[in-house]
């Protein structure tokens, strides 16, 4: 089973960020250990004469080439549709991709996406030929509106960016899955533990995008592998068909022919 992102079939269902690692070398090793074929990155104003970002850019390019992967630029830091559209166009030129992870932040405290600006930016960019991957809250109606606009991939959060709180509202994510069966749904942001990613997959999600949970681990390379396995496990479990939860206990050992001294009402 492969992950479908705008017609691109990918073996790995893990999308990984390139930020917050202790060194570019660790970043590269972690990304390779994750098996991911989609790496997020960003754009920032810098003094060109310092050229401080050149090394990390070189590492990201090398890593993505090694896994025959894809760059997924984001619009981190944007707070309006206008800023977001401008940054998306800059990313398309520089990274030579029409994929864009659309982030429009509406609140500085929890970095919650602004749904109004997100819809405006998504509509304009889709008309301009972009393949939009919107980062959004776990709001069903917002996700439906994004789907109606033409977002084939939708990325609701598990919880606020960088918190590691895991999935705050499984019901919301599950409902989005049920109501948008054709969409490629990726849980983005808030994942802390491998079990969080496994849970997202068990809810029927198509993939998981994360960064901090790997980059801030004591051993980022091992954690990248742990997430890869957790996502594979969760997907396998979902596809296998998870049993229905029951309200009462049911013995798993057959009771037929139970030795008489275990029968209720008898004394041993």
């Amino acid at each position, binding site marked *: 089973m492969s992950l479908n992102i705008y017609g691109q079939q990918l073996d790995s269902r893990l999308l990984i*960020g*390139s*930020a*917050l*690692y202790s060194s570019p070398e660790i*970043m590269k090793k972690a990304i390779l250990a994750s098996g991911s074929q989609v790496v*997020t*990155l*960003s*754009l*920032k*104003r*810098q*003094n*060109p*004469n310092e*050229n401080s*970002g*050149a090394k*990390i*850019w070189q590492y*990201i390019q090398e890593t993505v080439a090694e896994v025959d992967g894809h760059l997924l*630029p*984001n619009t*981190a830091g944007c707070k309006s549709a*206008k*800023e977001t559209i*401008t*940054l998306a*166009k*800059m*990313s398309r*030129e*520089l*990274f030579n991709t029409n994929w864009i992870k659309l982030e429009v932040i509406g609140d500085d405290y929890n970095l919650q996406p602004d749904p109004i600006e997100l819809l405006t930016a998504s509509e304009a960019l889709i008309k301009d030929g972009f393949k939009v991957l919107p980062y959004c809250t776990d709001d069903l109606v917002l996700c439906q509106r994004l789907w109606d606009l033409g977002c084939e991939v939708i990325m609701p959060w598990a919880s606020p*960016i*960088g918190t590691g709180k895991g999935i705050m509202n499984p019901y919301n994510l599950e409902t989005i899955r049920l109501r948008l069966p054709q969409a490629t749904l990726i849980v983005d942001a808030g994942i802390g533990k491998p079990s969080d990613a496994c849970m997202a997959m068990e809810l029927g999600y198509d993939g998981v995008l*994360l*960064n*901090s949970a790997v980059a801030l681990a004591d051993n980022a390379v091992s954690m990248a592998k742990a997430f890869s396995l957790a996502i594979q496990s969760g997907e396998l479990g979902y596809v296998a068909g998870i049993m229905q939860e029951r309200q009462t206990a049911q013995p798993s050992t057959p009771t037929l022919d139970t030795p008489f001294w275990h029968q209720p009402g008898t004394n041993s």
Partner: protein
Amino acid sequence: MIELHINGQQFSFDSTDVETLEQALSVYFENKQQSTFALALNGEFVGKEAYKNTRISTGDSIDIMFPIQGG
């Protein structure tokens, strides 16, 4: 003189040398071969092919963006 805001900082250039975006970048960049960037003029994206013919005026704001790691 022409005054430009580049990445939030103010710069003054001789207006006879700097009339287009391409000329402004040529003066601003120490490394003339620098190509790993994208640019916005007054908040609007300008593609590389348009630098040569995009005229600039005093007070214009130029944002020059470079790749960085991101999540």
